[in-house]
């Protein structure tokens, strides 16, 4: 196996302006936020972002002018409200949205992973999503005479960004027992390149103890970076919960372009490392959750 260890900076240098970037994220859960901050620090431009349910990451990338297209099923910080900077950018026409239902997004990514031109679903039939997206969604007759299906064209991200509990230096990626959303499965499987941050880099021997928990084989991973609290301020169970105070602070700052920019300057552009970011945030250790019996194997 080949070594894939990189710094945040080296890893994000693999992302080119204008590329299609798939991002792990579910509202307030499990986004590779250290990679998101590095996208902003490196001033990437014109990225298209794929999310299942995007949260603060989308708002930051919108505020910083990194993305001009969003492909996804929803954007929301749930209890902390809509993503206002994203919303304003869409309403101003600066970000174009390709809205897909979950089963359609899954089908598009699944076709990308499998090198199929499309996969079908029966979801979203009858909605306006189809007419808005004729390049990628077409009704298709069943060759066996049944109901027509919605053919969803293959979507191949240029790069997928994910955060994991642990990885080895060869890029084998492991998660603790957790809900497996599509963003840690089909998104990286479909992507041309995969960049991983992990709470810790461990010896391969550790992974071999629980081969059922390894989700991505090293040979599809291009770079792996050790980043403790790499998902902060989103949650990363069982390690830590989402940072409510930080989410509220951002939700307030995001009401206005100037305060949003000041927030991003303070927490994203100024800290030059994950440690400086964590120091700027304050005490994150209180977010750590107690690993309960049902989470340990």
């Amino acid at each position, binding site marked *: 196996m080949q070594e894939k260890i990189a710094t945040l900076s080296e890893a994000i240098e693999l992302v080119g302006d204008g590329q299609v970037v798939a991002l792990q994220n579910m509202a307030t859960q499990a986004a590779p936020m250290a990679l998101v901050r590095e996208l902003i620090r490196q001033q990437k431009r014109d990225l298209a972002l794929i999310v299942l349910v995007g949260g603060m990451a989308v708002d930051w990338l919108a505020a910083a002018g990194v993305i001009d297209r969003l492909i996804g099923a929803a954007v929301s910080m749930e209890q902390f409200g809509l993503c206002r900077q994203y919303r304003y950018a869409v309403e101003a026409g600066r970000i174009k949205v390709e809205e897909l239902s979950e089963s359609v997004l*899954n089908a598009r990514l699944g076709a990308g992973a499998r090198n199929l031109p499309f996969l079908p679903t029966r979801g979203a039939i*009858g909605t306006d*999503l189809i007419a808005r997206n004729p390049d990628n969604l077409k009704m298709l007759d069943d060759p066996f005479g049944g109901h027509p299906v919605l053919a969803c064209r293959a979507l191949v991200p240029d790069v997928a960004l994910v955060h994991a509990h642990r990885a080895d230096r060869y890029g084998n990626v492991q998660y603790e027992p957790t809900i497996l*959303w599509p963003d840690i499965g089909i998104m990286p499987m479909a992507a041309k390149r995969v960049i991983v941050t992990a709470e810790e880099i461990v010896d391969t021997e550790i992974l071999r103890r629980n081969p059922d928990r390894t989700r991505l084989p090293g040979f599809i991973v291009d770079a792996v970076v050790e980043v403790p609290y790499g998902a902060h301020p989103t949650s990363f169970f069982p390690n830590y919960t989402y940072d409510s105070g930080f989410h509220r602070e951002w939700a307030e700052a995001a009401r206005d372009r100037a305060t949003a920019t000041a927030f991003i300057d303070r927490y994203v552009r100024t800290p030059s490392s994950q440690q400086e970011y964590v120091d700027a945030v304050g005490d994150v250790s209180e977010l750590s959750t107690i690993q309960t019996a049902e989470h340990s194997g």
Partner: protein
Amino acid sequence: MTTDWQSSPVATDYAVDELMITTLAGLFKNGDQACNGMASFIPVSAFMLARLTHAPDLVWLASAAGLDPRPDRVPASTLEAPLWRDSVMYIEQYGDFWNLALNGRWIQKFCVGAAQLDRYGNANNSVIGDDYDRPQVRLPGTAGLADMGSIGKQLYFWNPNHSPRSLVEKVDFISAAGYLDGGDARERLGLEGGPEVVITNLAVMDFHPVSKQMRLQSVHPGVTVATVQKATGFELLMPEGSVPETAPPTEAQVRLIREVIDPDNMRKRGFRGG
């Protein structure tokens, strides 16, 4: 299961969120499978109540992901790990959840909120305004709702702010298929299921079996038919005979909601003053 919930007297002290929860809970049958999405405090409370009362075998897929969990109360998020605590199964999403969901036999009922809902139960969570690419308001997006509307589910809408802005003549964008133009429009596309009930802070509505137009089913205690109609952006069909009053919660139900299920009052979120 609490055994005294049925013999308990009707409550006099209850809030409209509690009425909506007991009304929704009453629609779940023992053995149904149901799932919630994010920001779904009313449905989550209703599942938990139903399981504690008349439907102990209601199968709950918390956040569509954790099977039959035991959260100690309604948590601050309905899309985070505390909700699926002690699950019997973590349902992998890309494969297993959609295998179950797309198969019409499972997960019969889906509860959801919609920014706009029209006369035929078409739902909009995408954009307000005519120009999709420069909308007046960019909403969160359809998430799984666009799927659930087309794959044989019964849709239960809940709306804490019944108003002409949320109940509209025609949605600006169909994020989820209701009865489309009404009548047999769904059947013609081969779509089974569809909107079943709309529970708001004022009333309960269903859909006429033939025309598929939204129809008043009951008004909440203290609310008049005229108030409901005035708060609705289109003319509601009326039921035959007089319009009944929505059955109020029992004292036991209110006590379960306040003391056991949701002591942190998460259910009040999204309600005016909540």
